[in-house]
């Protein structure tokens, strides 16, 4: 098989590795994974160019308040030198792994990545993050589950 044929075969394999319940894997032994599948499982999830997909309805979307805030937080963290955008992309678009990559919303990954970088770079302990999320949720319960006012400011 030519090397370009190998490339095309890779695209066929990874195009089928999307969250699904019909190909269960329970950590097979090494002899069961050929090089093509080694490559497929260790692929970088963001590299989707050329995979097959179907025509869809192209849609616009209203931005959620949390999505806007998430985007701004990501840019401001880079502005203030906590990370650069490429570190963010690597964590957000590849480190998250294939299932989160296609399973979670676009800005859901941006948001998870903020949380993880705070812990990874030791600005925040994981226990502090957990406690803070819980505190914020309890606060929201007293506000009818709302975090923001009509203008998008924090309540």
């Amino acid at each position, binding site marked *: 098989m030519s090397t370009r044929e190998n490339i095309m075969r*890779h*695209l066929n394999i990874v195009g089928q590795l999307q969250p699904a319940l019909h190909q269960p894997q329970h950590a097979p032994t090494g002899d069961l994974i050929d090089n093509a599948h080694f490559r497929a499982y260790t692929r*970088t999830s963001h*590299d989707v160019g*050329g995979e097959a997909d179907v025509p869809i309805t192209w849609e616009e979307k209203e931005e959620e308040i949390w999505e806007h805030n998430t985007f701004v937080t990501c840019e401001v963290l*880079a502005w203030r030198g906590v990370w*650069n955008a490429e570190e963010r992309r690597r964590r957000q678009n590849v480190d998250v792994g294939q299932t989160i990559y296609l399973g979670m919303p676009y800005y859901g990954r941006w948001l998870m990545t903020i949380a993880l970088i705070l812990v990874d*770079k030791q600005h925040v302990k994981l226990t502090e993050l957990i406690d803070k999320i819980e505190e914020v949720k309890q606060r929201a319960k007293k506000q009818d589950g709302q975090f923001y006012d009509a203008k998008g400011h924090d309540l």
Partner: protein
Amino acid sequence: MSKSHHVEKATGVGDPQCFKGEAPAAKFKVGDKVRIRNLPDIFYTRSQMYLREAEATVVKLVYESPPAEDEAWDNTDSPEWFYSLLFKQTDLWPDYPKKFETDTLETELSERWLEGI
């Protein structure tokens, strides 16, 4: 706490402007034919799989910058030249209709991904 390189290096200057002059002399020039190396892409790459082993023509030397694979860990030690490369769609995709033979694709890769042919 160490700060990301931008704050020190790029303020008032811009990125990739801040890396100007830091790469070794460019290996390729406009018009050169290159093949895209199929290096391991373990953990991170910004060199798309669909380009690997394909042939392209260098159309522009665009800027110097650390390769994305290093910048993704905030390492800016070794900037290299980045090239804009032109591919024929019929070279990339076996199913690309021959009647649209002139269709092309342009994208950028850093020097490590290229070999001369």
